[in-house]
C-alpha cells in the first residue's frame, strides 16, 4: 500500500511536470520541468528492479541531454517561446486527437483481454537474483544483443559526424583575401 501511495505521488509529479513543460513560455523553465519528469521516471526505474537504467537515466538524460538542451537554449538566446498563435485551428483538433489517442489506449489497456493476461509484478524469486543489476544487464547486452549494440555504436558515430558537418561554419574567408588584394593593389 505504501507502494501505491508512493507511485501516486511520483506519477502526479511526473504528470504535472510534463504539463508544466507543455505550457511553459520560457524554454529554460520547460527544460527544468522535463528534468523533474525524467527524475521521477528514474525513481520508477529504481522501483522496477532496473537500477542500472535508473543510473543511465540520470546521467545520460538528466545530465548529458538536458545539459545539451540548456546549452543550446542559452547559446541561441531563445528563452522566450510564446505559445502557438499562427495555427490556431490546429490546437483544438490536436487536443481532441490526443484525447482520442488516450481513450483508445486506455480502452485497450483496461479491456478484459488485456487485463486477463497482464501479470502483476511479484517479488523477485531467488533464482532471478540480480535482475536488472548492471552485471546482469551487461551480460544480456554483450551476449544476446551484441550486434544491435554494435549497430548503436555505429549510429552514435554517424550522429557525431553529422553534428560536426551540420554545425560547421560555412562562411569562407575569400572576401577578406580579395579585399586585402584590392587594398594592396591600391597601395601599389
Amino acid at each position, binding site marked *: 500500500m505504501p507502494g501505491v501511495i508512493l507511485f501516486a505521488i511520483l506519477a502526479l509529479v511526473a504528470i504535472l511536470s510534463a504539463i508544466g513543460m507543455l505550457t511553459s513560455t520560457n524554454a529554460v523553465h520547460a527544460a527544468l520541468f522535463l528534468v523533474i519528469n525524467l527524475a521521477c521516471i528514474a525513481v520508477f526505474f529504481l522501483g522496477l528492479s532496473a537500477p542500472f537504467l535508473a543510473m543511465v537515466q540520470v546521467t545520460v538524460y538528466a545530465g548529458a541531454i538536458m545539459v545539451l538542451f540548456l546549452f543550446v537554449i542559452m547559446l541561441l538566446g531563445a528563452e522566450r517561446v510564446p505559445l502557438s498563435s499562427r*495555427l490556431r485551428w*490546429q490546437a483544438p*483538433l*490536436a487536443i481532441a*486527437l*490526443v484525447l*482520442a*489517442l488516450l481513450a*483508445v*489506449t486506455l*480502452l*485497450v489497456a483496461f*479491456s478484459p*483481454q488485456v487485463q486477463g493476461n497482464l501479470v502483476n509484478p511479484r517479488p523477485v524469486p531467488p533464482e532471478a537474483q540480480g535482475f536488472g543489476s548492471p552485471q546482469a544487464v551487461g551480460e544480456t547486452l554483450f551476449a544476446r544483443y551484441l550486434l544491435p549494440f554494435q549497430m548503436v555504436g555505429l549510429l552514435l558515430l554517424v550522429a557525431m559526424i553529422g553534428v560536426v558537418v551540420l554545425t560547421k561554419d560555412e562562411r569562407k574567408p575569400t572576401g577578406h583575401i580579395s579585399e586585402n588584394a584590392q587594398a594592396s593593389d591600391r597601395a601599389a
Partner: protein
Amino acid sequence: MDGLFSIVPLIILAPFTGVLINVFFGRKLMPRRDSVAPGVIASSMAGFSFLIAVLMFFALLANPAGAEVPVLTWINVGDGDFTLHIPWTLKVDTLSSVMMLVVTGVGTLIHIYAIGYMHGDIDEKAASRGLEGEEALDFKRRRYARFFAFFNLFLGSMLVLVTANNYLMMFVGWELVGLCSYLLIGFWFDSPEKNEAGQIIGVLNSSAGRKAFVVNRVGDFGMLLAIMLIFWSFGTLEFDDVFARAECMIEAPQAECLTLSAAELAPQGEGEAAAEEHGEGEARALTTPIALGPFAPTLGVVVTAITLLLLLGATGKSAQIPLFVWLPDAMAGPTPVSALIHAATMVTAGIYMITRSNVLYAMAPVSGMVVAVIGGATAFVAASIAVAQFDIKRVLAYSTISQLGFMIAAVGLGGYIAGIFHLATHAFFKALLFLGSGSVIHGMEHGHHHAHGQGEHHDAPHGEDERPFDPQDMRQMGGLRKHMPVTTWVYIIGALALAGIPPLAGFWSKDEILLDASLNSTLVYILLTVAAFFTAFYMGRQVFMVFYGSERTEAARHAQESPPVMTIPLIVLAGLSVVGGLINLPVGGLHPLGRWLEESVANAHIASFNILVATISTVLALVAIGLSYLLYGRKPLEEGEADPLYSTGPVFTFLNRKWYWDELYAAIFVRPYNRLGDFLANAVDWQFWHDFVHDRIIADAFQGWAAILSRPIDLGIVDGAVNGVAQLVESTSRSLRRVQTGYVRNYALAVLMGVVAILAYLAIRFLV
C-alpha cells in the same frame, strides 16, 4: 508440211522485236550521222516477216485448207449458255496469206526505201530548226530510231489484223493500226511546216494525225457495234463459227445453231452447198427470228445491220465516203508513211474485213448494194478531186481513195477476188508512186538547198501568185526527167499501171472490177468507168507537169537523183507493177489468184474475161492520157503560167476545194461540236456544275455543316468535355494544394490522425 504453219507467230513477233530493239537501243545504234542501223534492223525484221509469209504460201500450196495456230487464250469467261472465249489464234488461209504477202512484201520495200529517205528528211528538219553539231545528231538519233520503231509497230499491227481468227482480235489490230497511223502522220508533230518566209504551209502535222484518229474513231465505233451485235446474235466471234451459225440459222431456229462450231461442220462440201443454196435463196427472205433482248428481228435484218455497221468501220479505215477526209491530210506524215498507209497496211483493212465477212454480206444483198454504191461514188468523187490538185502527194492521196472505192465497189458487188486482186496490184503501183513522189520531193529539196547553198537567193515569183518554195507543189517542178531519170521511168510505169493500160498490173485488176460492175450494177459501172477515165487523166497530168516541159524553179533546175537505197525498191516495185497482173491472169481459164482465194472465200466467183469491157476501159484511158497530153504535154506550163483547167472556172475551184467536204463537215460536225463543247465546258461544267453545284450547293452545304460540326459540336461539346475535365482537375488540385501548407506541425497532425485511425481499427479488431 502442216508443221510449217506453227511458225506463223514469228511473222508478228519479228516486227515487234524490231520495235523493242529500236525503242531501247535505237539511239545507241547511231554513233554517227550517217548510221543506218535502226533502219537496217527494222527492214530486216520486215524482211524476216516476208520470209515467213513466203513459207506460209508454200505451206498453203501443199495444204490449201490452211490452219489455225493458237498462241494464247485472251479472254475466257462464263460457262453454260453464255461463254465468251477469245483466243489469240493466228489464222493462216489463202486470203490471209495474200494479205501477209502484200503487207510484208511491199512493207519491206518501203522500209528499205525509208532508210535513205528519212536520213534526208530528218536532216532537212534539223536544219530548218537551226540544230547543229551534237544537237542535230541527237535529234537525228531520236527521230530516226523512233520512226523505225513506229514503222515496225505499224507493220506488226497490220499483221495482227490480217492473221486474226476472230472479230475482236481483228479489232485489236484495227485499233493498233489506227494508233500507228496517228503516231506516224503526226511524226513531225512539233513541226509547224513553216517555210522560210515564216508562213505556215500545209496542215499542221499533229492536227492531221488527230483528224485521222478522230475520223477513224467514228468508223471504229460502227465496227465495235457490229462486233457486239455479232456476239449477241451468234454467241461467238470466231470467223468460221460465226459464218457457220449464220448459215445454219437460215434453216434452223437460232437456239439450235448457237452451239454449232465450224469444226463440227462437214468441211468442204457443205460450205459450198450453203453458198449455192444461198445463191438461189437470195430472193427468199431470211425470216428466222433472232432474240435480241426485247426485240426479235429476223435474221435478214440483223445481218443487214451487222454488215452496214461493218461497212461504217470499213469506210473509216479504208477512207470511203463519208469518212475519207482524213486520208488527204495524212500526207502530212513522211512520204514512206504515206506509202505504207496507202499501199500496204492501213487502208486495205476495210477491204480485207469485208472480204473476210463475205458470208454475211452474201446474206444481206441490201448491204452489198450500199457498199458498192458507196465504193463507186467514192471512186468517182475522189478521182474528180484528184484532177484539180497541185500537191503531188495529194493527187496520189485522192487517187488512193478513188482506187479504194474501186475495191469497195468490187467487194460490195460480190467480186471478192477482183477486190483483193486490185488490192494487191494497187499496193504495188501505189507504193511505187508514193515512193517515187518521195524521191521527187527529196530531189526537189536537194535542189532547193543546192540552189540556195550557192548563195543565189532566188525567191522570185515562180507561180501565178507569190508562192513560197514547196517541194510538193507540182507547179514548181517540171522537166525533172532530165535530172531524175530512174525516178521518171518508174513513175511513168506506176502511172500507166494506175491508169489501167495493158498489160500492166492495174489493167487486169481494174478490168475485173469493171467486169463485175457491168454484170451487177449499171450505176456502179458508170461511176467506176468515169472514175477510171479521170484516173488516167490526172496521172497523165501529173506526169507531164512533173517530169516534162521546162524547169519552173531553181529547185527543179538543181534537182538530183535519189541514192540507190531509195531507187532500188522503186525498181523492184516497178517490176511488180508490170508483172503483177500475172497473179490473176484471166487468159485460158487460169485465174491463179481466183483459184487460190476460192479456198477461203466462200462466195468467191471467178469472172471470165470480157473483151468489150476491157476495150472500153482501155480506150477511155488512152483518150484521157491523150487529153492530158493536149493540155499539159504538148505545150508545157511555163514559169508563172496558170493551169489550163482554170478556164473551167467554178468547176475547177469546186474540185480543187475537194467538193467542199471539209467545209461541209466543219459546218455540220466540227463547229457545232466545238460550240457544244464550248457550251458544255463553259456553261454546263464551269458555270452550272462548278460555280453553281460545287461552289454554291455542295461547298456551301459542306461549309454550313462544317460550321455546325466545328463550333457547337467540336468546340462546344468535344472541346468542352476535354476542357471541363482539365478544369475539374485544375480546380481540384488548386484546392488540394492547400493541404500542402508547408507547416511541419500540420503534417505531424495528419500523421497523428493516421495513427489514431489505425490504432482504433486495430483496437476494434482486437476487442470485438
